[in-house]
């Protein structure tokens, strides 16, 4: 999985690309932990280029959510396709994460 990062004000936009499965979840989780450790507490994860997310990917998102919560930051998701939204729904994650329709809306929510 490839990871692209963009800084927009105090928000770090992460663009994971490819598959967030067992192999992809680890580098993603490690990078989120590094960013939080470095003081970035406002994260927007743009899921537009995620082609598959498994239970391992959801765990990575849950861990990120907990880390951000612990430091009173904000974690927001955007670019969630209908198929990804369906998976969030069947995994009962929709109420846990803030999901925005557009990146601009996501930045506003995460700030």
């Amino acid at each position: 999985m490839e990871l692209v990062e963009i800084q927009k004000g105090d928000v770090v936009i992460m663009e994971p690309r490819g598959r967030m499965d067992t192999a992809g979840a680890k580098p993603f989780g490690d990078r989120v932990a590094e960013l939080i450790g470095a003081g970035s507490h406002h994260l927007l994860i743009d899921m537009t280029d995620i082609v598959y997310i498994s239970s391992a990917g959801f765990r990575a998102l849950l861990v990120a959510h907990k880390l951000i919560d612990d430091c009173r930051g904000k974690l927001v998701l955007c670019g969630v396709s209908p198929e990804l939204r369906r998976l969030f729904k069947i995994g009962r994650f929709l109420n846990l994460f803030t999901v925005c329709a557009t990146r601009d809306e996501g930045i506003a929510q995460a700030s």
Partner: protein
Amino acid sequence: MTRPSNLIYGVADKPPKLVCLISGVQHVAILAPILIVPILVMRAAGGSMEATTQLVSVSMIALGIGTMLQSLTCRWLGSGYLISFCPSNAYFPASVAAVKLGGMPLVFGMTLIAGAIEALAAPLLRKMRPFFPAEISGICVLLIGLLVGMLGIRQVFGIDESVGPSGTSTVPEIALGFGTLGLMMGLNVWSRGSLRMYCAIIGILAGVAGGFGMGIVNADAVAASHVSIVAFPKWSPSLPQFRLDLVIPFAITALAGCIRAMGDITNAQRINDRDWVRPDLTSIRNGVLADGLSTMCSALLGGIGGNTYSSSIGLANATGVTSRRIALWTGTILIVLAFFPIAASAIVSVPRPVIGAALLFNACFILISGIQIVTSRLLDSRKTFIVGLALVLSISRDVFPGFYSGLPDVLQSFVGSGFVLGVSAALLLNAIFRIGVRSKAAMTLASGADAHAAVRGFLEQQGARWGARRDVMERAIFGTAQAVESIAEHCNARGPIGIAASFDEYNLDVRISYEGDAFMIDDRRPTDGEIRDAEDGIRRLAGFMLRQNADRVRTTSKDGRTTLEFHYEH
């Protein structure tokens, strides 16, 4: 459900009370032609005019209750759509046979049995789904359109088989019929808003006024004009009677009613949903149950068997008002009118050519809906034969009635009407063509292979080959990829993983087999904390999501080999 742009008020909308009232009156008005069915049955029984008026009054109560039951959105009852309940033409031959053998008590008893058969068939429809595909629903709607259209032609031209093949209508009567039809069509095509919404009732009222001016009056209305204005409908206290030899004709009529209700409800679903893909079987099951119970209710009140009224769906579509709230108004108006015998005679007083015009107007919309349902699926050679032969056989019944009436008695129940013949042929051909309809494909995943890419490639390719729906294939791709990932990570898989997929139009099944530890599928979602921190959190979440993702999941383990089976309804 997405509301089509041509609808002014969709099924879940709440139109203003005035719109509800006028639309309700309009739906009651188009029931007028079909109220002739109980009158004809009573005539066959040699009943008096008073008895006939009473029968029409109790029929109106049954129609009111049936229309309201059909619109319910309860878990087990009611399709949730605006579909009027009406005395059914299909019950006419069986009811006349019963009335001649045992009078009205026998009609009521056998109708009670027919209603019970239809109600009991409703819960079986889901399992029987492969035998009632969209093209058969479409054929039902199409044939009903033809039936209604032919009835309209008979009414306009005065064609009555018992008198002879020639029409008895005079030139002014034919002119009245086509003038009424022209007005309805003109208002529907070139007007907007209220005029379009009420084109049917405007046409009927104009036709009645025109008929009055031209001296064209319905003889039944004249005969019934002596009835009192307000009267409590009399309930027939006689106990219902039963005869074993009439069970088969009534059972076949009940099955035809079941199929017709399925077709009507499918049609209502389609006109109310721009993105309609396939019949909603829960709504159909509940609607067929409501239809069967309504027929039982009609029998208990002393009326004859009924069915969903295709013309009401055509009217709702034509006027752009399909709100289920209209059904409550229509039902209430019918029940209230039952206490006014003069109203029953007024309904029957609509001149025959005007009734014919209303039937022809609605038949056009029903026919086109049927064609749209039939062509909503890719028509392969199997479906081509089903649709083509069913249509030809159905039409041939009316073209060559002498041939069909000469067939052995045992077949008469099936060839008694073009509608039953066409639908029976479609059902039989569909059952035969189920042979060899299932397609299968398999692949093997070697350890260390890029499992997700291989699974996606395999299932996407097969999905395209089978013409499977994209959303169902996406579910299967996720389920298979997630299962393979979990097997590799948590089940100590030894050797390759086998994946087999099989498909027919209604089912997609994926079977994954491997040598290794058993796979646990969980009904309970692990908590967020368990997913994050527990050693088996990811595995348990995977099991839970796989359970939610498929319509049915089964795991079996034998001699160290585990098989996972995922079923997806298509």
